[in-house]
Each structure stands twice: as C-alpha cells, then as structure tokens.
C-alpha cells in the first residue's frame, strides 16, 4: 500500500532541503555584503555626514534660537498666530521635561527622511502616472513595502550597513514613501482631461504639460501624500531606535524593557506633539497654496 500521510499532513519539503535553501541564500547575501558592504556604505557617506551635521546644528544652536526659527517657519507657512502659540507651548513643555535634545534628534532625522521621500517619491509617482506598465510593476512593490513588517527588511539592511543612522533612514524611507508615490500618481491621473487636452491643443510640450498643468493641479493630492509620509515617518521612530537611531524612540524602547511607564508616556507624547505640529502646519500650508480652489464650481 502506498503512503497516504499526505492526506493528513501537508506534503512539505524536507527540513534538510529548507535548511539548505536558507543557508545558501544567507551565505550568498553575507558574501555579497562582505564584498560590497563597504562601497555601499561609502555611497551613503555624504548622507550620513549631512545627517550628523544637521543633528549637531539643531542640538548645538541655543534652544531659543532654534525655537524662534521654528516659530518663524510655522508662521511663514500658515500665517496663523494660534498655531504658532500651540507650537511654542508644545516645545516649551518638551524642553521643560528634559526631552529637548532627543526631540531635536528626531526632528532632524524626520526632516531628512521626509525630504528624501519627497525627492524620490514624486518622480516615481510621475512615472507611474505616465505609464500603465510602470504602475503595474510599482503598485505590488508598494504593497509589499507597506505590509511587510519593518523588522524583516531591517535584517538585510543591518547586515549590509550595520547599526546606525543610515540603516534607520533607509528603514524609515521604505516605510514612509508609499503614500507620496501613490498619491502623486493618483493626483496626476485625476487631472481634468479637458484641461490637459487644452494645454496639448495650444501646443504645450510634455514638460510644459507636466510642470504647468499636471503637477500644479495634482498638488492638493500630492500634499495629502506628503502629509501621510510625515506621519508614517514619525510612527517609525521607535522601530528605528532598535537599530541605533537616537532620539525620542530610544527612551520609549528603554521604558518597554524596564517598565518605566511615565518615561514612555512622556516621550510618546512628545512624538505625538511633533506629529500634530507637522500635520497641522503642512495642511494649512497646502490650503493656503491652493487659494484658487476656494468657491469652486459655480454655474
């Protein structure tokens, strides 16, 4: 009689085969990182230097100068004294509870990650909007990036680059970039067909169409994407701290392992405060930039 165990148990591959596969892949990756790790690290060096420089700038400048610059930026972007007052109070509280330095570190890495995400994400979004094939390739990648647990892609990054700021930035960017890509694509695809046709009919070149019509009209949607990206970057702060990114995430991590409830809560609240500030400021800036949309669609 033949073996019928496959009916009751899944006919999986033998443990030995699986082990062999794992060992081969791990080995291949290890030798890859040994061979190219250094050159890849060198490639990221300028970014690392910039990160350190920016972080030091925020920390070493006297707190009241940094604070007044932040308030100035907030006012320039929103023209709202109410929001400025809110920002001032939050930062004063953060400083008073002794989290100023960590907050500056987090602020610097979030700023860099956001700028990177925008610089990489918007062109990819434009590419996706222009070609359906690119869209069909990129969409599943974005799905993977958003659903794959962050720890999984932290492993190869850490293997390649070790622990530190750069792997942290890479992890945060991978996690935070999908919204800006998706919404850039969506925004451009939603641009009124007739408006675009009008530009074409009057002899606009593809570049003039992109920068004169598509991007400006997609801007509200793109801004929503950028906003989401910032929020997601902030959400990654704690995870990134596991691979040595300093900032508000580390005390949170420390309080998880040592059960310091108050420390965790305070640092968590600081992250929330940063998130709310980023959100409100970017949203009211976007609203102000889209003034022509007010009182739309009459007649």
């Amino acid at each position, binding site marked *: 009689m033949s073996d019928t165990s496959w009916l009751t148990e899944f006919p999986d591959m033998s443990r030995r085969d699986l082990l062999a596969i794992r060992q081969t892949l791990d080995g291949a990756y290890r030798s890859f990182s040994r061979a190219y790790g250094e050159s890849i690290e060198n490639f990221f060096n300028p970014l690392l230097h910039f990160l350190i420089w920016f972080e030091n700038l925020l920390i070493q400048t006297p707190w009241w100068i940094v604070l007044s610059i932040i308030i100035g930026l907030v006012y320039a972007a929103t023209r709202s004294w109410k929001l400025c007052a809110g920002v001032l109070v939050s930062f004063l509280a953060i400083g008073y509870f002794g989290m100023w330095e960590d907050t500056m570190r987090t602020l610097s890495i979030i700023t860099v990650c956001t700028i990177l995400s925008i610089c990489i994400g918007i062109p990819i979004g434009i590419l996706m909007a222009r070609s359906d094939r690119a869209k069909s390739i990129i969409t599943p990648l974005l799905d993977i990036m958003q659903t794959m647990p962050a720890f999984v892609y932290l492993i190869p990054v850490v293997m390649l680059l070790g622990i530190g700021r750069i792997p942290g930035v890479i992890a945060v960017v991978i996690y935070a970039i999908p919204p800006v890509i998706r919404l850039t694509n969506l925004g451009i695809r939603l641009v*009124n067909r*007739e*408006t675009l*046709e*009008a*530009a*074409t*009919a*009057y*002899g*606009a*070149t593809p570049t*003039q169409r992109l920068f*004169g*019509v598509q991007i*400006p*009209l997609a801007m509200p949607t793109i801004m929503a994407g950028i906003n989401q990206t910032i929020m997601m970057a902030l959400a990654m702060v704690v995870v990134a701290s596991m691979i040595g990114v300093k900032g508000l995430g580390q005390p949170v991590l420390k309080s998880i392992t040592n059960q310091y409830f108050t420390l965790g809560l305070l640092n968590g609240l600081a992250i929330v405060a940063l998130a709310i500030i980023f959100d409100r400021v970017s949203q009211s800036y976007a609203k102000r930039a*889209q003034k*022509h*949309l*007010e*009182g*739309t*669609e*009459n*007649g």
Partner: protein
Amino acid sequence: MDNPRETLIEIEGLYQIFGPKAEEVLPKVKAGASKEDILAETSHTIGLQDINLSVKRGEIFVIMGLSGSGKSTLIRHFNRLIDPTAGKIKVDGENIMALSPKDLITFRRHKMAMVFQHFGLMPHRCVLDNVGYGLLIKGEKRAEWKPKAVSWLETVGLAGYEDQFPSQLSGGQQQRVGLARALCTDAEILLMDEAFSALDPLIRSEMQEQLMELQENLQKTIIFITHDLDEALRLGDRIAVLKDGKLVQVGSPVDIVLNPADDYVKAFAKDVNRARALTVHTVMTTDTDKVEGLTANDVKDQFPMDKDYAFVFHDGNYQGVLTKRQFCQLKDDDLLEPVLTYVEPVRQTNLLQKVIPMCLNTQFDLPVINKKGELKGRLESSKLAKVLSPNFSTLCYTLAHKKWPQISGHFLTHIFSIMPLF
C-alpha cells in the same frame, strides 16, 4: 464670402477604430462590416468611418450629431489630439499626419486654437494668464502678450476680470475666457467642441451672437461641433451631419432643412423652428449690385436696366430704393433723395423671425448690409417664404409682390394669425 473660397482643410478616408488591434480590424470595417458585428466579433468600437470632407477658408463649418455619433472624436483629429487609424488630414496643403512631434507642437501653436465644452481652463491660473496661455507656452514674455490678452478680454466683455480665478466666474464668463484664449493666439483655425452646449439657453444665444459678430470681422475658419440643429443652422455656413461615425449629409443650412438626405436628417429638421434657427445669411442672395451717388447724373451709368429697382448708397451709407420708373423720370441734376423709398436694411446675422414683418411690409427685396454698412446681398421675399414653409410659399409670394394697399385687412389678419406657426 462673395467668391468661391479655397479649401483650407481636407480630410480623406478617415477611420477611427478604438481597441488594441485597430489595424487588424480596419480591413473588415473597410469591407463594410457593421458597427455591431465588429463589436461582437472583435470587441473593437468604430469611432469614425470613411469620413471625407473639406473645409473652406473663412467659413463656419458645423459638425452636427447626437452624442455617440463621433463628433467630438472627429474634431480632435483636426489638431491630432487623437490619431486616426487610417486616413489623411491636410491643412493648407500640408499633410499633418506626417508631422514630427516637434513640428506638431509648432503646428498646434500657430495654426489652430480650441474651445472646449467644459471650458478647459487652468484653475490655478488667473483669467489673464489663461487668456495668454497660448502665447505663454510659445515662450513670449508676459509683458509682450499682456496688452493683447487684456484687449481680447475686453472684446469678449470681461474687462476688469483679469486677476480673478476661473472658479470665481460663471459658466458663461468662463467660456468667454475660453474664447478669448483661442482668439489671443491669432490662429487661423478655431476648433469649437460643443463650446456653448454647457451654457444655459439665454447665455448660449448671446454667445452665438457674439461669435457671429466677431466672425464678421475676423473671418476665421471655424469648425463648430454641436448636437443642437438650431445652433448649427444659426451659425453654420455649411453643416455636416454625423451619425454613428458616418457622414450622412454635408450641405448649407437651407439644404439640410429643405432637402434632408435621409430619414435621420429629416427627423432632425422636422422639429426645427426655421424662423428662429435660420439667419438672413442662409437665405439671402449674394448680390452686391448697387448704385452710388447723390444725383441722377451720378447713377446714370450704374443703374441696372434689367432690374426694376436698385439700392442707392452714398458715401458708403445705404440711402434707400430707387425704382426704374422713378429713375427714368428724373432729370440729370435732380437729387435722388426725394424719390427714394426707404426700405429698412437687415443684417446677415438677423434671425428670419425678425425680418419677416419687414419683408411683409414692402414690395422690394430687403438690402442685407454688414456692420460697416456695406451691401452684402438682398433678401428676396419669395425665397424667404419658400424656406420658411413650402406650403405657404405661394400665398406669401403673392402677398409680397402685390402692392401694400391692395391687401385687404382680413387677409392681413389671416397672415399674422399663422405667423406664430413659423
């Protein structure tokens, strides 16, 4: 307008088939397979088939059809917003299908301007920047095109709206901006894709009037798309009727109304209020014979002796009608003025409705003059009557050619009582 005009745009054997393998389906369509069969067999949609037409320089060419007839698709071939599956498009003798992408952009910038159904304005640019858009993308400096854009805005009646955004304007105003944008480029050809269809009736007829007034001065070549026969008849020098992607009939407005090519056009033409849809332009006889002068001596050599009367002009201004009998009785130095009969002149753009009373009021043809007062032709009452309704033509003819006092009051009442029918 007076002499036969040269052809500006020519379309030959144009086919548009929508679907991934249009080229392979084309032979079947050419062999005469029906739209439904093609859709069922190959799941390709036929947009246009075997379109042949020519548009003359300076005319308003209306393409009319119901939704789904392919009219908006067709107009997008003129500037290649859509490329045809097969066929030739020539503009000014140049085959635009052969243009490189770069030449195509140059062609669009200089030859054609387009007005869209839903305006197609840029919501993030102010009205002035919208009007100057065609010049802006050519690379002209703002300071160079600004005066021009301002003056076109003024022409369409939107002076003072320069800094508004399109969303702050009403639909009619937005379409005026669209029109100003098209005119600002100085393109010879104007493509108007259901330009007035999204506007309410009052604004629409206002815009139609404005377009015709502008056209009198500009003499552009206008391709006008509409689903409204009234509009087509009112604006068009010639009308092409499109059905299911095929041209059913191409002809003058009078042709369409009086000699519909098939039942489809007939059904369209049946419900038309001719007096309100047709303008004097469509019915008038082009004839610029006139006499110019102040005295009998001046007009002696000009008077057309084969006719019973002539229109008298002096200094370019219309004076009145001089009959042959009166002319023969005049001595050399007699002034013409005392013997002239003043027959009210009409404009080409007047609707027939407006001129019917004037026509009934005189035994003469009505002189048709343009804005500048130049004679463009004459409106014969017999022709007017024929166009309005074949059934009443004899009646009206008699009426118009008898002397006014001879018509009995009863007869008049009868005529006016049927007037609303027109």
